[in-house]
């Protein structure tokens, strides 16, 4: 696989040719990855991948379809929280009673992914492996402290989601690995808020903000601020988080978090928004969502 500038502007067909396999099991899929490395790439919902293939911004020689693999499509309860299979769709997340019970912020984020058809097609594993700074599920997973399970024929390794993204369209996934599931611990606090700022529903976001808050006797004891579309990868606003821990849970404190978050991001201007707007809306939304999270009845 390689990325280059769009050289093909038609979206009617995919002009590049590639091979195609349907592995019968996860084991077989991992063997294919072991044998061919990045010359064979997983295809799940296809809502990002096919657009990139049409535009020839990405070239693939061999796709393997992983959406039928039983090993990857479950949401299950663990001691710490949930284990969510890579091909679980946005629609599954929105309708899972386990997700609603343990991590409702993830169902909320999935409902922002882009309309009914994309919710039925797109998967959490595809959303993360696509490596977009605008990945809808990334900001909530960052503040939840989620981990991804990366499997190969040699075994599995567990990577904190904070270390998974390395740049636009880049992740730490090795050529012989598959992302098989996402482990999400149940948060200690029910105080959270989430918003994708965008023009219309099927747009990619201008900015994504996810926040969580723990308070004790009017003091912020812990907080999480996850942001999308404001840096080369989805990020946590760690400086803003650190600045308000131990501070009184007031609108003034939350406004301070917004100001610091706005300073620590590195947004760009593109077709969806400007760097200046992204800084301003980040400042405002971090403040407002922390206020919302604080006012949640828990």
């Amino acid at each position: 696989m390689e990325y280059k500038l769009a050289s093909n502007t038609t979206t009617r067909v995919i002009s590049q040719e590639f091979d195609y396999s349907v592995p019968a099991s996860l084991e077989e899929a991992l063997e294919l990855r072991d044998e061919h490395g990045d010359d064979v790439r997983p295809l799940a919902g296809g809502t990002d991948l096919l657009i990139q293939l049409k535009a020839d911004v990405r070239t693939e020689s061999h796709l393997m379809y992983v959406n039928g693999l039983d090993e990857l499509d479950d949401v299950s309860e663990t001691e710490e929280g949930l284990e969510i299979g890579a091909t679980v769709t946005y629609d599954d997340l929105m309708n899972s009673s386990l997700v609603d019970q343990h991590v409702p912020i993830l169902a909320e984020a999935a409902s922002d992914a882009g309309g009914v058809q994309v919710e039925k097609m797109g998967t959490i594993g595809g959303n993360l492996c696509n490596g977009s700074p605008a990945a809808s599920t990334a900001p909530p997973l960052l503040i939840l402290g989620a981990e991804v399970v990366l499997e190969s024929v040699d075994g599995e390794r567990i990577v904190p989601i904070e270390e998974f993204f390395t740049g636009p369209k880049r992740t730490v996934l090795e050529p012989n690995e598959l992302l098989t599931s996402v482990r999400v611990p149940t948060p200690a606090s029910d105080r959270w808020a989430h918003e994708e700022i965008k023009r219309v529903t099927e747009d990619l976001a201008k900015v994504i903000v996810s926040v969580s808050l723990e308070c004790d006797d009017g003091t912020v004891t812990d907080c999480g601020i996850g942001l999308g579309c404001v840096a080369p990868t989805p990020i946590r606003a760690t400086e803003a988080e650190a600045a308000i821990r131990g501070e009184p849970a007031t609108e003034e404190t939350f406004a301070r978090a917004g100001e610091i978050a706005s300073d620590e991001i590195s947004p760009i201007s593109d077709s969806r928004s400007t760097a200046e707007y992204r800084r301003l809306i980040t400042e405002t939304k971090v403040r407002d969502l922390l206020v919302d999270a604080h006012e949640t009845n828990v």
Partner: protein
Amino acid sequence: MSSEKITHGDDGGNERTIELTINDETHQVRVKPNELLLNVIRDKLDLTGPKYACGTGECRACSILVDGEPELSCLRLAVTADGSEITTVEGLSDGRDLHEIQQSYLSEGGSQCGFCTPGFVIMTKDLLDNNPDPTEEEIRDHLKGNICRCTGYNNIVEAVKVAADRSPENGESE
């Protein structure tokens, strides 16, 4: 699903035969891995209801039901639909007798230039199959991804309301 590694044949292609059941008719079709489900349905099976417009998942004119779920046929490889049951807008009418959803789009003026209509009708079928008596908010939410560039949204919403009233579940079907 069986495991299969495609090898290039002597003709330099890697065509394979897939089976698609479309509107209750089963077809065997030869396709290459890079062929889009939309193009196979339109060009090889002559069902031109689903439309190509944006090609990037933003307009939803290519919407079809795959195994009962609404999907975008321009963002799905045909090979991945092997063995699937598909419904296009052509599958709704009974010969020349229009489905009550199609009747409602006609009576309420829910279609202007008509290009987006197959996608809207399919999404309306999906909505009413799962929620026979939706609120206006639920209608607008379900159709939120589909774009009508004639901007005839209010009449479309009216058409869905009328179709819901006429549906057998609500006891007003003739």
